[in-house]
């Protein structure tokens, strides 16, 4: 038990230098959590807010690529692991940095993979704890934690981080996604007692590349706003799908740097402003 306590002490010491830790979550996969995480980190940094990114999706890591550091390999230094820093100085840590290449899946060493369900989640929790506690984050105002899909992921994170400041929930305006996301919000607010910073409606429309006209993906609807109201959590805004945003993140480039006037960029900056205001309110 002493060693487990020491692990938690080590985590606590590291996280003292981080202002607010915010999870980016969704019960549903494919709604754009990682896109939102990378974009918010970019936007917050441009506002002068020291922001870091932890890729907590151990089995599907993508933040290293999205943040422009796909080839970075961490190394030990003074008892910590160095974080990657992208061209804007944002520290990034991801499981993918420990794997040989982007084709290699995460396989844990074991005498047999049979029966892995009995220990896999435990070793993943240990790995996640170490990614948090052993990374040299420096002094941060905000650490964004990109969670994998699944309502239970937030609960696992809260077990590690009882002082998690809040969670941003991402959804698309599809009925199927929102039903699942609604459960995740209930999990956050009712079971894990995590404050929801707000809901982001991602891929709300598609932007014509030439004319800038927006076509709805899912028809005219206010379902996500209704979902936010039903759970009494803030609605942070909608981000239209822009293939240039996807292209930029595929290549680790800043969308805000090159497409600042586009509707999606305006939305991201507005949402980042609200997130920052929320953190200021929480810390005051």
């Amino acid at each position: 038990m002493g060693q487990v306590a020491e692990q938690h002490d080590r985590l606590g010491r590291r996280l003292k230098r981080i202002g607010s830790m915010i999870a980016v979550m969704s019960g549903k996969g494919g709604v754009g959590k990682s896109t939102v995480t990378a974009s918010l980190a970019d936007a917050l940094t441009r506002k002068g807010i020291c922001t870091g990114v932890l890729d907590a999706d151990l089995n599907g890591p993508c933040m290293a690529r999205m943040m422009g550091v796909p080839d970075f390999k961490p190394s030990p230094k003074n008892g910590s692991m160095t974080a990657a820093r992208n061209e804007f100085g944002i520290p990034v840590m991801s499981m993918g940095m420990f794997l040989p290449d982007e084709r290699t899946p995460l396989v844990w060493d074991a005498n047999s993979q049979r029966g892995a369900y009995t220990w896999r989640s435990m070793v993943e929790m240990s790995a996640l704890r170490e990614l948090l506690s052993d990374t040299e984050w420096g002094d941060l105002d905000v650490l964004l934690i990109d969670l994998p899909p699944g309502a239970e992921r937030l609960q696992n994170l809260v077990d590690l981080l009882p002082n998690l400041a809040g969670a941003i929930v991402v959804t698309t305006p599809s009925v199927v996604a929102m039903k699942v996301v609604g459960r995740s919000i209930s999990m956050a607010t009712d079971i894990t007692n995590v404050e929801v910073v707000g809901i982001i409606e991602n891929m709300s429309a598609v932007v014509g590349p030439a004319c800038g006209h927006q076509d709805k993906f899912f028809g005219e609807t206010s379902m996500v706003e209704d979902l936010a109201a039903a759970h009494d959590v803030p609605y942070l805004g909608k981000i239209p799908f822009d293939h240039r945003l996807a292209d930029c993140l595929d290549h680790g480039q800043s969308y805000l740097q090159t497409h600042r006037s586009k509707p999606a960029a305006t939305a991201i900056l507005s949402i980042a402003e609200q997130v920052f205001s929320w953190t200021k309110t929480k810390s005051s």
Partner: protein
Amino acid sequence: MKFLCVPCDQPMNLHSTHGPFDGTMSIVYECPSCDVQMAMLTNKAETQMVRSLGVKIGGRTAPAEPMETLRSSLAVSHEESASESSSGGRCPFTGVISDAMAAAEPEAGIHWSPEALTRLEAIPSYIQPMVKRNIEDYARDRGLSEIDEGVMDAMKGQLGM
């Protein structure tokens, strides 16, 4: 977790460990007062579960290296994420277990037949090191000096792959 010697009302000390052999190991504790010994046997799942916790049986004498459990538990990792010191790194849940595993790693005396090597090379590269080590452990535990296709067939079911 500690074991108590009931007659002496003393916590027992770690005495020695044996294994892991085929994923199982025994950990021997001894009472400092009466020298009575007891052994705890772990099966494969229990060994792996303790390993997953990132703790060291018998207590630590040195602080954990950064991301020790993560780096030592990967079936294959990037070579550049190697240890800061030459001695650390692969030390998952115990000097005990990892030392024993390290001791089991040398391949001296184990010969691979060409057919067995061909089959090994057909396995995805990212799990080859783990599979190779497990098969060699399997052969070593049974006193075999050569790994041929028959050994691989016998081992196949145990790998779960």
